[in-house]
């Protein structure tokens, strides 16, 4: 499915079980995702979507199988924190912002230990906040923001260290459709302007409709993998209205 593009995410025979092996959340997942793809992962609740995303983000380890992301073999990677900081950007279903910090400070959090000065972190965070369109809320605390605003902060934080892969787990799950649309515009523009690979786990057919590839899962397996019925979005930025 990757049309000869470089494979950025490769899963081979990935198995993940819980409850001492009684619950096979992932039961042999094979998957290749190419650079610059916008992929939606769909499927009923409990089919293993989040589990797969967590393994790809190295938040958890598979019981079996291989996962390679952005050229890193996650089984043998010795500095997963570097991988998580630089190679991927995570957007959670709940925004998971730190309530004690301001919006700008939240965006700075992943930049610690990346060789940036406090001033550079500040400047970069402001730049990212203006990219997601909420630089005017930089000094606010997350609890003062709307759900859509918070999710935009979360996207800005995911972009902190310029990752090539954005992984989002139901980023619009709790947003109304208008707000969802704006968050999706943002994710799409990342792919379009920065060539980022975007993987979105979603329930929402409207989200899936905007992806250029939809992967369906059931009971821990990939059961359908195909181009969107809708014509794929062209990769060139100027080709879109």
């Amino acid at each position: 499915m990757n049309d000869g593009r470089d494979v950025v995410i490769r899963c081979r025979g990935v198995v993940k079980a819980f409850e001492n092996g009684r619950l096979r959340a992932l039961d042999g997942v094979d998957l290749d995702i190419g650079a610059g793809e916008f992929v939606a992962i769909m499927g009923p609740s409990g089919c293993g979507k989040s589990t797969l995303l967590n393994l790809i983000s190295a938040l958890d380890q598979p019981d079996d199988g291989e996962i390679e992301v952005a050229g890193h073999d996650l089984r043998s990677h010795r500095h997963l924190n570097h991988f998580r900081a630089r190679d991927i950007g995570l957007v959670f279903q709940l925004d998971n912002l730190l309530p004690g910090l301001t919006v700008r400070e939240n965006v700075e959090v992943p930049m610690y230990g990346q060789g940036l000065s406090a001033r550079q972190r500040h400047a970069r965070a402001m730049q990212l906040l203006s990219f997601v369109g909420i630089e005017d809320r930089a000094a606010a605390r997350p609890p003062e923001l709307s759900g859509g605003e918070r999710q935009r902060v979360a996207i800005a934080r995911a972009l902190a260290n310029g990752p090539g892969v954005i992984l989002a787990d139901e980023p619009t799950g709790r947003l109304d459709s208008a707000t969802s649309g704006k968050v999706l515009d943002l994710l799409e523009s990342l792919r379009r302007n920065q060539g980022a690979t975007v993987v979105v786990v979603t329930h929402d057919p409207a989200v899936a409709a905007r992806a250029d590839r939809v992967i369906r899962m059931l009971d821990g397996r990939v059961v359908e993998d195909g181009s969107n019925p809708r014509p794929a979005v062209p990769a060139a930025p100027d080709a879109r209205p």
Partner: protein
Amino acid sequence: MGFAQLVLRNLLRARVRSGLTLVGISLGITTIVALGVITAGFKSTAGAFVQSGGADFMVAQEGAADMSFSTIPETVVPQIAAVSGVAAARGALFHFTRAGSNPLFLLLGVTPGDLAADGPPLVEGRYLADGATDEIVLGAQGATDLNVRVGDALTIDDRVFHVVGVVQSDVLWEQSGALAPLVTVQEIANRREAVSVVHITLASGTKRDEVARRIEDEVPGVVSIVTADDIGKIDSGFQLLDAANVAISGLAIVIGGIGVMNTMVMSIFERTREIGVLRAVGWSGWRVLRMILLEALMLCFAAAVAGSFLGLLAVQAVMRIPSVRGFLEPSYEPNVFVQAFIVAIVVALVGAVYPAIRATRLTPMEALRYE
């Protein structure tokens, strides 16, 4: 935002909890500082007494429980004077009694001849006359406290003394006390033919430690007190102060450590998901550990500063008590504050290491799923 600022944010988020922990630890530090300053003050005051009248050191009864209980028969004084290397041996008898508002007024019994030869400088009047029994020389502070002058009569323990002189002494106990003829003090104290301590002046060209040891070897039942720390040999109060100091530091570490641990465990517990987020966005376990340790260190550092300050206030308060004022001068040795800060750091480490390790043991996933 700097890392330290981020850590400070975390502390300030739980103001009440951080504040209460800070108060708890700073009270421990207060005690350490107050006791340290007072112990050091007592030692330097006592150390000055060891060398009073230009003496090189002093001798007391071996195994005395308290310096004021030390008893050496008067007949031993010439024996000590005869030890080779001793130029002069002057016996003195302590008698603590009530005078004016001071319940611990020191009346020091001395031989008039010794006082005339080696006594502190006179500000007024004269020293004790040879053979006089009802004369008294006051320390300048003692005279002020009792509001008496040369020529006045002063009653101590139902005995009327004539004030014949006032001296200015570097030794606080003399300065706020009084000197009277040895025979009279022996009578009042009912310790006839006894002295408490013997001050030694060395013959020129002799070594202090050698002479001190020789006295112990040749004269049975006595011990040489060369430094203030040696006073512990004849004064369990002295040892008690040292022991109390160690015990309170130890207690402060244990109680403070448990307090910090409690605070940090609760705060880490509550922030488990946040720690999961930090790990998920790329923080290493080590960075999380550093964050938690730094939180505890900042808390304890603030407590050390506050506690030192409160300790100084406590010393000021204690020094208002007249009997204490006549007994010791506070000594603000840097060591005391260094000790307080070391205790604070140990408290922070003891309290934070377990929660920090616990927090870093969790995988990012476990932390994120934590409810």
